[in-house]
């Protein structure tokens, strides 16, 4: 990889949906789009993504980060988020890169962002697609998320008042439910529950990076694909007992992958 070009960082709102975008430009032709996770996983990993973007930019990539509509700093209410909308948002960001004469665009996704990046790779051509700890099965993911309201309910009422199935009934009746304080619409939950899980075929040509061995163990086809497993990364998305904001091994590994032809 050549010498790092000077980078310039700017933030702006993109398009009619007013997506929050951060662009670290270094003037070279290689572009990298970071596809973010969802819900509270986003703030818990935000600093990691910000720092990683700066390292990638220093290594000669124009790096774009963004928040989906209805999430993070983008316009829209939480209940406006939907997987279909998120895919459109990713495509809008890639279009923005291409309009700026990006010849080679790579995607790097974290958790749900990695799932989305894998889906995007089926629809369009990217130089490289790298998945960090991807959500494999969105249906299981959203049900886990809904189940986690049990903790919320104990914290709020001292007991569990609504089971996951009662919450789904409530969603059917009212069109939205609150999970960890995030409003989820019927469309978002239905789309996630009906989304196809990633399979071996989806991942074969993509670069897979994990740091929790348990994720790989739980999904047999992942182990067969021999993904990269970082051993010194403590980044967590599901708790804040330990906050890691720089993950050198993860960033160096990813830079190695990006350098491959």
């Amino acid at each position, binding site marked *: 990889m050549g010498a790092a070009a000077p980078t310039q960082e700017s933030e702006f*709102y993109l398009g009619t949906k007013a997506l929050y975008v951060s662009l670290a430009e270094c003037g070279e032709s290689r572009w990298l789009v970071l596809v973010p996770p969802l819900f509270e996983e986003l703030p818990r990993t935000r600093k990691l993504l910000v720092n990683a973007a700066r390292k990638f930019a220093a290594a000669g990539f124009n790096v774009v980060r963004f928040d989906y509509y209805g999430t993070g*700093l983008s316009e829209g209410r*939480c209940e406006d988020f939907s997987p279909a909308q998120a895919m459109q948002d990713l495509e809008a960001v890639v279009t923005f890169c291409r309009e700026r004469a990006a010849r080679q665009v790579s995607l790097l996704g974290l958790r749900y962002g990695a799932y989305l990046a894998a889906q995007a790779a089926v629809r369009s051509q990217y130089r490289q697609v790298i998945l960090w700890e991807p959500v494999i099965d969105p249906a299981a993911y959203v049900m886990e998320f809904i189940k986690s309201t049990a903790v919320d309910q104990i*914290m*709020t009422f*001292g007991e569990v008042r609504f089971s996951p199935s009662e919450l789904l009934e409530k969603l059917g009746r009212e069109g939205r439910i609150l999970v960890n*304080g995030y409003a989820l619409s019927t469309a978002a939950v239905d789309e996630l529950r009906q989304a196809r899980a990633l399979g071996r075929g989806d991942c074969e040509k993509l670069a897979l990076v994990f740091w929790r061995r348990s994720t790989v163990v739980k999904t047999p086809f992942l182990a067969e694909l021999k993904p990269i497993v970082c051993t010194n990364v403590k980044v967590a998305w599901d708790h804040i007992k330990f*906050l890691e*904001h*720089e993950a050198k091994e993860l960033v160096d590994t990813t830079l190695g992958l990006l350098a491959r032809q």
Partner: protein
Amino acid sequence: MNRKTVSFANQRGLRVKGILFEPDAPTASDAPPRHKTGILYLPGIVLGLTAVHRLSVQVATEFQQLGYPVFLFDHSGIGESEGDLFSGPYDEFVSFIKRGSLVDDTLEAVDYFAKCCGLREVVLIGHCGGALTAVYATEKSKKISRLLLISPPLVGESTEATGMSKAQSKEYLALYKHKLFSVSAWSRLFSGKSDYRQILRMVRAKVFRKRGGGVADDGRLNKPLLDGLASAGRRIDVKIIYGDRDPGIEEFRGWQEQFSRWRIRTTVIPNASHGFVTDESMTILMSELKAS
């Protein structure tokens, strides 16, 4: 939509980045007036301004609709802003905030906000650690005219790592009871992934109380915060909002009378946790904030 990305260089030369929510220019006679008072929201801990279910964005949108300019920003080292932040256990970040590490950027943000929007005064709304920073900052700025403090933790630095209030231990006990039938929870326990320290703190708190140990003595509390509140209450309007299920409710209730002597208004929202994660608690929280 009337929000824009903004930034300013702080005294250490780092770019502090944020979002400015500007009220629409009044065009109709019934449009809310543009205010000379601005709202600056301070989130808790160090996860940046989208943490805790985008509470900051929800607050900003509500006040923007009432005609107030609102400023959200990430302190240097946090979120979008420039600067490094250490990695470490949660307790270290709690101490980092309790020591007042975020005050300088907050004061600069108040000045920047007041200047760029032509404001006479700035109201600080802080959640959790953000509420602490708000109180500390108020000591040093005359532009801050009002404090709306959501769930400020009253316990001090040293207590955080070892102690646990009665309400906290009760909550954890309920949580662990719920997990008794969870296979994954047992597997986490036996594979060394559970938070043993938390479990130990809970057991210690329970055993200690059963033996007749007392509740929070004043020595456990965050003295700079209480001093700051006493001083702020004499000078400006201060309101503290707590959820009745907040782990710190016990200490808060113990001080409510004193707060009222300091002319600080207090409200306890029923069925509300530290993070206000239900529709009902969020609705009451927003109306409490707006009523202030």
